[in-house]
């Protein structure tokens, strides 16, 4: 029969369409993987220079500043201040005193000093209203005063609307003076003598002064003027306070860079060297720090510069031929070096705070008394040190999954074995759909009941429930034996319908043990189990804890393991079983010696898939744990898993930020892990099928 050309065309089109549909599924899958990778990879890149502008200046630059977004540059020379844009075009010019020795910009202030006086200005970049970029600057004189006697250097330490704090130091004396603006009243807060020559000083977050000396001593001067000589380095060549003022960077004479921070334990604070960057063999001349994050620029005597990040100790960038000083713009995207010339670098430095060690290693954070694994992506203040360790989350994921498996594996495997090998076929037809319904229950329902129903019940009746879990099986066995002994002549009559005998036993025994929960806890635990547990172990009892998750997530995992294990059991050829029984082995001997052995690999893969399901489960852990990223082994503490962490934090995270990419990395880890488990078990099951044939 001839087919018409039209029919042929339709046929071919359909073929192409279906093929396209099939392949598009593959594309979707690949797309997911590529996309997750694409969003994750930038995390591990360092910083790079994306552009450089050089601006030539006629006179020698004494001090300079760069605006928040890096589009405006100010520099001070003898007798004046120039404001230029990034190409060097003049925007504004202000007059300053002649013969100045130093000029320093700090947080909207400019402090200029000549031989015997200091001049303080309010200096800030302003936008003209329509654009979001700054377009000009304002200089307002605040006050001038003579340099206190014997002092050589003045530094602004903090300023608000009504007052400004200035640190003065000379050879062996240091002062902190507070000036009220407007009235210009001064109040000496600290005035102290020190034994060695002061190189530099800054105020710490708690109000004390940190002063470093040439000979390598670091002094801490508290608010009442008491000096403690806390640390000794091998000479100090540069010093700087990190943003947030909870840590400072020190370079010693051989070029090693250290970061110090204090921790508070039982009321007394002690300083630790929390980070150390080994020397590159060159002497450090100065350190410049970012206001935005913990990035700092180290200038070496040979004119090279290295950009480091304190928390991760990561070397971000190296530039060889800068001249003199290096400023980091407020948004961290520009570097300005100044000396005889101005060089403006555009840099890409998006994720200085992430390194392999930051994600998976122990890190000594500012304010901690020892290195720790911590996840805390946001804090109260802008200058908070983000902590991105995935370890507490991985720990929580494993802990939750193990508790779930602890509960689910015995029940699911035993249940599957019973149903497959012992249960009456009529009952089987009823039970199988029930397990499938169980598999279809939304995890949000299970998690909800876990958190809002089970957790309070468990808290109230824990001793009774624990006892019930132990004695009910025992009671069931006894009851079974009794029934068979007295009510049936041979065991055969109830074969396959055992569950009807044990149902009342379970209800009775379990119910009784719960009813007497309070009595048990009075007798065994001296009253309250929670208090007993706390005094014995020192860890508090969380209402939403690992046991609750174990039950709830176990519930979600049981049908997965059950169905797969039952599947594996039914692949065992009936001939082997029949043969074993024919050889005179009992039913149980056949099951334990033949069936289980034959189905072993399938059962293992069922448990693995169950584990995979538990690892990725989100809603149950989100609702049934307190979601605190703790690393506690106690079964009565909560935890936070990788998946719950994504659900909690991703909706509120800025696109492209470090936490955003880390959450994508978490998703990628979950994807690859579960995919790998599935591929592996796929192989096992494939082999199983082949063998059974």
């Amino acid at each position: 029969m001839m087919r018409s050309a039209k029919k042929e065309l339709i046929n071919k089109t359909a073929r192409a369409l279906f093929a396209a549909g099939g392949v598009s599924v593959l594309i979707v899958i690949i797309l997911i993987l590529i996309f997750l990778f694409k969003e994750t990879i930038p995390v591990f890149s360092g910083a790079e220079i994306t552009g450089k502008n050089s601006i030539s200046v006629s006179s020698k630059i004494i001090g300079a500043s760069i605006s928040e977004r890096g589009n405006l540059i100010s520099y001070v020379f003898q007798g004046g201040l120039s404001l230029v844009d990034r190409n060097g075009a003049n925007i504004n010019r202000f007059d300053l005193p002649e013969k100045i020795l130093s000029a320093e910009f700090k947080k909207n202030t400019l402090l200029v000093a000549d031989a015997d006086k200091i001049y303080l200005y309010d200096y800030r970049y302003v936008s003209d209203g329509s654009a979001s970029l700054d377009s000009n600057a304002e200089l307002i004189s605040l006050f001038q005063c003579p340099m206190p006697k014997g002092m050589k250097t003045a530094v602004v330490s903090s300023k608000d609307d009504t007052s400004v704090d200035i640190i003065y130091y000379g050879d062996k004396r240091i002062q902190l003076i507070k000036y009220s603006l407007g009235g210009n009243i001064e109040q000496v807060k600290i005035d102290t003598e020190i034994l060695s020559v002061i190189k530099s000083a800054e105020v710490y977050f708690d109000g004390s002064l940190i002063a470093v000396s040439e000979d390598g001593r670091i002094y801490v001067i508290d608010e009442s003027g008491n000096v403690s000589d806390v640390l000794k380095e091998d000479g100090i060549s540069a010093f700087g306070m990190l943003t947030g003022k909870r840590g400072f960077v020190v370079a010693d004479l051989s070029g090693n860079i250290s970061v110090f921070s204090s921790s508070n334990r039982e009321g007394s604070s002690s300083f630790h060297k929390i980070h150390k960057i080994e020397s590159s063999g060159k002497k450090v001349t100065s350190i410049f720090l970012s206001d935005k994050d913990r990035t700092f620029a180290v200038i070496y005597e040979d004119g090279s510069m290295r950009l480091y990040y304190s928390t991760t100790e990561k070397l971000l960038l190296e530039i060889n031929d800068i001249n003199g000083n290096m400023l980091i713009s407020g948004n961290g995207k520009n570097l300005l070096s100044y000396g005889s010339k101005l060089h403006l670098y555009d840099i890409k430095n998006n994720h200085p705070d992430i390194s392999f060690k930051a994600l998976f290693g122990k890190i000594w954070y500012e304010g901690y008394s020892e290195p720790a694994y911590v996840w805390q992506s946001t804090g109260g203040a802008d200058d908070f040190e983000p902590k991105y360790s995935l370890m507490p989350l991985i720990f929580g994921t494993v802990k939750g999954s193990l508790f779930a498996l602890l509960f689910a594996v015995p029940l699911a495997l035993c249940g599957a074995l019973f149903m497959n090998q012992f249960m009456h076929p009529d009952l089987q037809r009823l039970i199988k759909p029930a397990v499938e319904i169980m598999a279809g229950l939304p995890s949000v329902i299970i998690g909800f009941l876990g958190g809002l129903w089970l957790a309070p019940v468990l808290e109230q009746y824990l001793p009774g429930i624990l006892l019930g879990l132990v004695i009910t099986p025992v009671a069931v066995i006894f009851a079974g034996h009794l029934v068979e002994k007295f009510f049936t002549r041979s065991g055969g009559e109830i074969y396959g319908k055992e569950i009807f005998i044990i149902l009342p036993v379970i209800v009775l025994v379990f119910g009784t043990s719960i009813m007497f929960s309070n009595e048990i806890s009075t007798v065994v635990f001296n009253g309250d189990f929670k208090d007993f547990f706390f005094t014995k172990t020192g860890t508090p009892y969380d209402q939403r804890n690992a046991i609750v998750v174990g039950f709830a997530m176990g519930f979600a995992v049981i049908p997965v393991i059950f169905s797969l294990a039952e599947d594996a059991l039914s692949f065992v050829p009936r001939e082997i079983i029949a043969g074993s029984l024919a050889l005179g082995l009992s039913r149980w001997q056949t099951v334990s010696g033949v069936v289980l052995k034959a189905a072993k690999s399938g059962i293992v893969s069922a448990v693995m898939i169950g584990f995979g399901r538990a690892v990725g489960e989100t809603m149950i852990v989100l609702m049934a744990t307190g979601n605190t990223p703790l690393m506690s082994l106690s079964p009565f503490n909560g935890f936070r898993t990788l998946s719950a962490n994504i659900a909690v934090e991703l909706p509120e995270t800025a696109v492209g930020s470090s936490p955003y990419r880390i959450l994508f990395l978490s998703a990628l880890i979950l994807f690859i892990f579960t995919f790998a488990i599935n591929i592996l078990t796929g192989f096992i099951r494939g082999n199983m099928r082949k063998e059974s044939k």
Partner: protein
Amino acid sequence: MKLEKTYTYLLAFSMLCIILMVLGIFTIVAMNGLPYFWLKNVAKVEMTDGKVYYGEIAGVNPKAENGSETKLKVGNRKIYGQDFLRIKDSEIKSVSYPKEIIMLERDEWGNAYGIISDIGGKEFDNIHSSVMEDKKEIMSLEKGRLLSINEEISKLNHRITKKSETGLEEKLEKLKTESAVIETDLNSKREQALIKTFSLVLADGQIDELKYYDIVKKYQPNDVSLAGKIWISVKGFFEFIFADPRESNTEGGIFPAIFGTVILVILMSIFVFPLGVIAAVFLSEYAKEGFLVKLIRNTIYNLAGVPSIVYGVFGLGFFVYAMGGSIDRIFFSDYLPSPTFGTGGIIWGALTLAVLTLPVVIVASLEGLKSVPHMYREGSYSLGSTKWEVIKDVVIPNAMPGMLTGLILAISRAAGEVAPLMMTGVVKSAVALPFDSSFPFIHLDRKFMHLGFHIYDVGFQSPNIEAARGVVFNTTLILLIIVFALNLTAILIRNRIRNKLSRSGV
């Protein structure tokens, strides 16, 4: 004692535990949820010290610290500060159930209990129903015409300021006057409705001046017969399904959540069903077993094990930010930086769920296709059909039950899946439904409410969880019923297919 029997009983015990847990879930949810629809009698509790309370007895705690305690729901939160009161049983003088006590369900501040003395029951009902009608009218005006006028005004404003179009001012003025007219009309209507008040005498003799406008329903629980109570409970259950939430979701109904779930599921089905069926037909009918086909089949099976949160992350990054962001840059650039599609919306939720449920649909469809006997195909070929005709007229119709099973399972999964939606646009309380009477009727960019998320949000994020228990357990019950019905249908269809398959001997 034979060890063998011991093992058998342990196995049976495990099996029974699993079954009991499944039954337990249904029982717990129903037992905690359904009583909220029951109209409880309101007790008048007289204390030995002369105090009198009206309230529902919410529970007795015989083991409280200072002897047996009774938890009384006294309502009137606006006056007493809290809904519940714990009283010592030893101090109770008498408990009675006078018929005249009235329970009022209110828009705000929870229930009120008391006695209305200044107005007769019939009269009250007449005024209340007339005020309710005014209220309905006010609401429909507010949500209908006024909302759409305001939307139009903001659109016009946008066109005038951003695109500097001219000649629109007149239209704008006209709309503004219309909006002002409606608003004054509304205000006067509302004032008239609000002015009508009555006084409720509370248990302690205080008089609370209440507005008819705030009263949702009035009951006289102690004066209702058993049949009446059953009728009220049944009505309450349906009202719960079809009413809007009140008091930040802790009272009232869950209609927007059900509606959002339904629209979401429909959108998802539109994406996933054709694609899943096409992929399955390709794998089963066209593809020759080779490396590529094996790869596709294996990845589909393995995808089923990937956690749903991963799809959520993908949905947020790819659909919302990448696709939605591009749509915004191309079509809605004048609205930037406020995003139109570049933020969570029902379309992105549906697409994410479509990707998530794709393996479910494909696997079930493959099973359905496998159940079509080869003889059917061969018979059709022998009559001269092309491959496409065989597939279209013989294979797909016969495999349809399997494909539908896949769709049903996918729908059931989507109805209960929450984690991916949290990233792609589900909200606790949507301003407007994703489907309404204003053009273009279906608003794919709107945020939506969802049953599963509603459970999470009301149960775990609301400030007064104790007050929200009724809503959250009953929402769970409804989701449970939906998922149960869907799964049962799928299982029944699939069992029929399997029977057919084993009968046909393939």
